[in-house]
């Protein structure tokens, strides 16, 4: 069984969501039921691959000790960069070994969801360092990591936000709203993923794949781009919808990305929980550090370097294959160029509110984004 695909999964899901709805409507805590349903699906999904199951549980146990020990050291020694660095390094180590393994052709520590679970662990470590997290309850931390709706592919929730919902008992009125918008998102997600993405994938495979003329490449970029959107946004909508029914207001991951008017706007609408994670935990921190150390002569240079670095790391996180790294660098460079253009250009400042400018900017940006997906797909390696 896989998460959010196949009849078997959905039959179990809808049946198991009924008790949740009943509990929710009766103003009961859904905490223990979340444990039950997560355990059920994790056993069903990981059961056929026991090694992955062991890696998953092993990492969760390891991460729980790591965050607890780090919290203890943080309380004792304060903001010590040396200890902090080691904690982040240890949390990342299994992911790094796994990614290098994939690139080099061996398989170690790989389990479904490893990339996403690392974000949640590192968020807790960084916020502990910041002094924002002063208490970690082990069981709640494990529940946060293993909540099945977003275990394998996001969205990336934040622990403090999750805990707040986890401890909450919704009133009947509040839960009714959660339930109805949850079911709506769940059904929208199924439609996106099964119907829209399915049809586009068929079109891609049947009519476009295998042709490499410029016109076909444009077609591939667009169809692949929309297919990826419906697939991933559909998946996330199902995950968010299911979370709502289970009493957790998981953050949305997409907000009409193809309406974005520039590349910054795009990253505020596409895979939102990932880009805001990178903004909060990498970009902003790198910028603060750069100002402190006077690393760059001008703020614009600093921003450009920061953006490229940020997106490069995002590319590497997707995988060490050339097309992922190229995708990250491509977006980093575009973000940097747009930042410089918007800061320097009088033409931009005079016209940015005008309708024709917005329309033109939208069209150019759409093509920039679609070309990015073409890089991401790895399809170009057939041409080059």
């Amino acid at each position, binding site marked *: 069984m896989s998460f959010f695909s196949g009849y078997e999964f959905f039959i179990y899901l809808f049946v198991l969501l009924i008790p949740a709805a009943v509990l929710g409507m009766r103003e009961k805590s859904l905490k223990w039921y979340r444990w039950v349903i997560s355990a059920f699906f994790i056993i069903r999904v990981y059961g056929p691959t026991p090694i992955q199951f062991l890696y998953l549980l092993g990492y969760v146990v390891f991460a729980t000790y790591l965050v607890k020990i780090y919290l203890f050291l943080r309380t004792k020694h304060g903001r010590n960069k040396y200890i902090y660095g080691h904690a982040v390094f240890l949390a990342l180590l299994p992911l790094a070994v796994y990614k290098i393994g994939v690139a080099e052709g061996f398989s170690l520590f790989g389990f479904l969801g490893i990339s996403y679970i690392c974000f949640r662990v590192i*968020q807790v470590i*960084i*916020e502990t360092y*910041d*002094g*924002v997290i002063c208490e970690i309850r082990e069981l709640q931390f494990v529940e946060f990591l293993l909540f099945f709706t977003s275990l394998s592919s996001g969205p990336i929730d*934040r622990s403090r936000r999750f805990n707040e919902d986890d401890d909450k008992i919704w009133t009947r009125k509040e839960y009714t709203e959660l339930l109805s918008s949850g079911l709506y998102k769940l059904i929208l997600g199924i439609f996106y993923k099964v119907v829209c993405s399915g049809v586009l994938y068929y079109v891609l495979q049947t009519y476009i794949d295998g042709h490499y003329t410029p016109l076909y490449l444009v077609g591939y970029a667009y169809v692949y781009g929309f297919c990826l959107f419906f697939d991933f946004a559909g998946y996330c909508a199902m995950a968010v919808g299911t979370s709502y029914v289970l009493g957790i207001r998981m953050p949305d991951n997409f907000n009409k990305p193809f309406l974005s008017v520039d590349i910054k706007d795009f990253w505020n609408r596409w895979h939102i929980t990932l880009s805001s994670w990178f*903004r*909060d*935990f990498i*970009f*902003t*921190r790198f*910028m*603060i550090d750069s*100002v*402190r150390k006077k690393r760059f002569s001008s*703020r614009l240079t*600093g*921003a450009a370097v*920061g953006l490229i670095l940020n997106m490069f790391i995002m590319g590497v996180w997707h995988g060490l294959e050339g097309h992922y790294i190229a995708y990250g660098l491509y977006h980093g460079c575009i973000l940097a160029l747009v*930042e410089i253009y918007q800061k320097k250009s009088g033409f931009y400042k005079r016209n940015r509110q005008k309708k024709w400018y917005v329309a033109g900017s939208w069209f150019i940006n759409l093509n920039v984004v679609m070309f990015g997906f073409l890089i991401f797909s790895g399809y170009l390696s057939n041409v080059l």
Partner: protein
Amino acid sequence: MEEKLLDLLAELCEEDEVKNNLDEDLFESGLMDSLAFAELLFAIEENFGVIIAPSEIQRSDINTANKIIRLVKERMNA
């Protein structure tokens, strides 16, 4: 302290206008972007000894001059 903070803000946004309307949304008006935001957090740490972590606050907690002043004051008194 308020005056100093407003001076910092005006410098970061490159616009003295921010001093006139303390309830203007700095992100929506384009005065503040993610870069100026990072510099603001650093400037607050440097000048007032208040450390604000980037992930600790939502944009909506710190999107007007008045909200920034209130947050820094709260932290200084804490």
